[in-house]
């Protein structure tokens, strides 16, 4: 029995050691790989999903913030729908280059190419959701802080089209989920969008 015991204990110790080494290495591996590329490939794996949002906008023009809330729907890589339910009903659909806006019983189809300002904002958010690093980098310099369990992606405009409009965009989340998007506009306007129940 004893003779039978030893090797087994030795085996289990070895196994434990191996597990410990692996465990010790894991965070190191994770930290080592946790950069913009890792975040992007994580986000790129997101399936289509719905979420609810709350947005607070602080506008320099207005004394008090304006709030809105509603639902978001994203179908990778290029379909983003924002359905506002409060204070009024409004639907904004960005699909490829086209922007459809429904408001007050009217439906408007615009082209993002013709609306460079809206395009910068939509593209920043949509490409982030899609983990589309290429598109993001045509507009912004990217940096990421934190870890997989709590990260913040910062977009700093690097082309004039974007720099005319935004000063910075901070997107934070956990794993593949985005919880918060904060946009600082040129001229002092800023908006904060909180997203719940992200993912399918």
């Amino acid at each position, binding site marked *: 029995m004893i003779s039978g015991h030893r090797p087994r204990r030795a085996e289990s110790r070895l196994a434990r050691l191996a597990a410990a080494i692996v465990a010790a290495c894991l965070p190191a591996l994770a930290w080592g790989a946790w950069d913009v590329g890792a975040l992007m490939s994580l986000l790129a794996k997101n399936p289509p999903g719905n979420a609810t949002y709350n947005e607070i906008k602080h506008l320099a*023009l207005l*004394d008090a913030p304006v709030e809105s809330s509603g639902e978001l729907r994203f179908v990778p890589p290029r379909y983003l729908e924002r359905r*506002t339910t409060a204070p009024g009903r409004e639907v904004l659909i960005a699909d*490829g*280059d*086209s922007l459809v806006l429904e408001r007050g019983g009217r439906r408007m189809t615009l*082209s993002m190419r*013709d609306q460079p300002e809206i395009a910068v904002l939509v593209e920043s958010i949509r490409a982030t959701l899609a983990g589309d690093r290429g598109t993001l980098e045509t507009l912004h310099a990217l940096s990421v802080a934190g870890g997989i369990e709590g990260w913040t992606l910062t977009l700093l405009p690097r082309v004039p089209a974007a720099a005319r409009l935004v000063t910075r965009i901070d997107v934070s989340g956990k794993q593949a989920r985005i919880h918060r998007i904060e946009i600082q506009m040129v001229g002092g306007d800023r908006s904060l969008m909180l997203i719940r129940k992200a993912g399918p």
Partner: protein
Amino acid sequence: MSRGRIARIVLWLAGIGACLAVIAQARFVADLSSFLPEAPTERQRLLVDQLKSGALSRMVLMGIEGATPEARAGLSRSVAGALRADPAFAGVANGSTAGLERERDLLLANRYALSPAVDPHRFSVAGLRESVGETIALLASPLGLAMGALVPRDPTGEMGVLLDRLAPSGGPLVRDGVWVSADGRRALLVTRTRTGAADIDGQARAMSTAQSAFAAAASRMGGEATGARLVMTGPGVFSVRARTMIESEVTKLSAAATAVVVVVLLWAYRSFVVLGLGLLPVLSGAIAGIAAVALGHGVVHGITLGFGTTLIGEAVDYSIYFFVQSRRGAAARDARGLDAFWPTIRLGLATSIAGFSAMLLSSLPGLSQFGLYSITGLVVAALVTRHVLPALAPTSLQVRDLSGIGRRLLAAMEAARPLRFAVLAAAAASIAVLATRTVPLWDRDLASLNPIGEADRALDAELRAGLAAPDARYLIAAFSPTQDGALAAAEAVGRHLDPLVREGTIAGYDSPAGLLPSLATQSARRASLPDEATLRARLAEALAGLPLRPGKLEPFIADVQAARLAAPLGRDAFRGTTLDLALDGMLYRDEAGQWTALVGLRGLGGVVERAPIDAALARAAVPGAMLIDVKAEADSLYAGYFEQAVRLGSLGAAVVCLLLALALRSVRRTARIVMPLAAALLVVVAFHALAGNRLTVPHLVGLTLVVAIGSNYALFVDGMAERPAEDNATTLASLALANFTTVASFGLLGTSSIPIVDAIGSTVAAGALLALVFCAAFAGRAKPAGVPA
């Protein structure tokens, strides 16, 4: 040469010279506006103006196909950019709002004069609170971003109101920044040319400008643009295409018909001298005919020239008879060359003139031209044959004897005699076919005259559907001696249309007053704007509790004060913008100096119910204002022509019968001539019915021609009973020869892709052939010579 001969030749040459001088000054046209009605009523006059040069006639729809979607979008942008810079185009839209800054600035600067929302309530405390509150709500939306900068100037959102009015929802799909068709496979552009569709040269220049802009853009793009092509439709494009088609076909078919006749005459006579002489009457007739049309109508239509071949068919007979006669006695030829045949030719000429008069009297200018051309041509050809040919023909002229062929034909004709029962049976069968037909025999649709093919029309419909382009089928027209009066009338109509829009009876309307309000409306709107102190006080009250402080709205206060003092917005303010042409199409002055305002109605799903509109018009009580259903109006106009063509055609046929009866003084002989003709007409009509062709005005013209040509055959065949057998053989040979040239030349026209030409060609070719065969079958038995005709 005798003095009389020289005098005749000199007279003839002088006449030809004078005609050529007239022709040199003549203007040749090939658009289809000659086949557009000369409008008898006010509505129809408006309609025709619109078709010729109205805003719709200036619209050219373009599609870019092939290559990749990105390449198409890129090409669309390049082409739009190039055309916007080109003077041939007054407006270019491809879905991109880039390049519309001037229009935006114009609207922004004049928003308080233009916005229908501006009234005293809008600038009251309650009104300001309402509109500014809505603007603040909009700021929360992503779209607020685009307008954010505008809020301090326009907190009441007048620009939004204006854009809603001018760019109604439900526009075309947008992909990659430009309009695309529903299936995404075509990039779409709407352009407006500076010239109307009736100015075909201008339209042709605009089209080639567009094609070269496209080619340049594609070559700049390189490989990516491989396979891309530009397609265009629109009234102007159709006019250009119709002209090209008419010109090329007229040239081609006339050349072919001439070649056929030349070959046949050469084969028959084996002599270039005889051929040249034989063609002289035809050529003289054609030249005189064109000159007569130029003098009578001011312009000569290409299609009229195309029917030059019709003269060959009939006038060539005259010289054939002349040659036949010339064989019979060289001694008596001079001045009496046609004596034996002259009475028959004269009667044939008279019946032909009766037939062509049906066309001459038509109020469709194109047909009237054709009638004038044919009558003049035939008369001149006959006169030249009778008086000039004998003077010109060398005394040693040898004409080949055709009596060999004639005798064989005579034998065939004898054998064909039992066929008269077959002819009657065919006529009866035709009546049965016509009586039991399931589709209407007549086509009263104006589109049946359209030379534009099915494929082109389908493309046009596709582009129109993709662009949600107005079909502008329903228009309300209002009139006034002054521009401002017309605008005020359009506004009065608009006030009664607004409830229909709210109730959803119509989707909307486009009024010139939307862009250029009447002076009264502008001054009422200006009067609604409060002075500075009042506005400040009201704003302070209205904004209480809203997150927007009045201090942020200084630009608004300044703009309102500027608008109060601004001079009224006038027509000139629009020059150089794309809105200029839009206004041109809706507000114009006719030759009499009267102003017309056109309000276009947008139906729900393209359908406009007349009754509510008529009721609204009655309530508006604008004197003279009327609703025009463009399609119904055009159709009724064409139907009018159709009725007229039927009436004139029947009258022509009746006159032909009367002439025959008077000349022949015998009911039996008249019946023997009329019966085969009537049978030929019946069989031709039945043939069209069986082939699924519906008859149009050109078909009626063709039937009239069959009567005119066929009555000649019938007269000669009838005359055969009175003449010696030797003469009959030659007569029959020349009839067959004349018939062959007619059938061949009209048969060639029958291959045309222009419906007008095809309809006449196929009808006459078949009708002329049948008429001769039937006449032969009905011919009386030859009698001993000596009884005068």
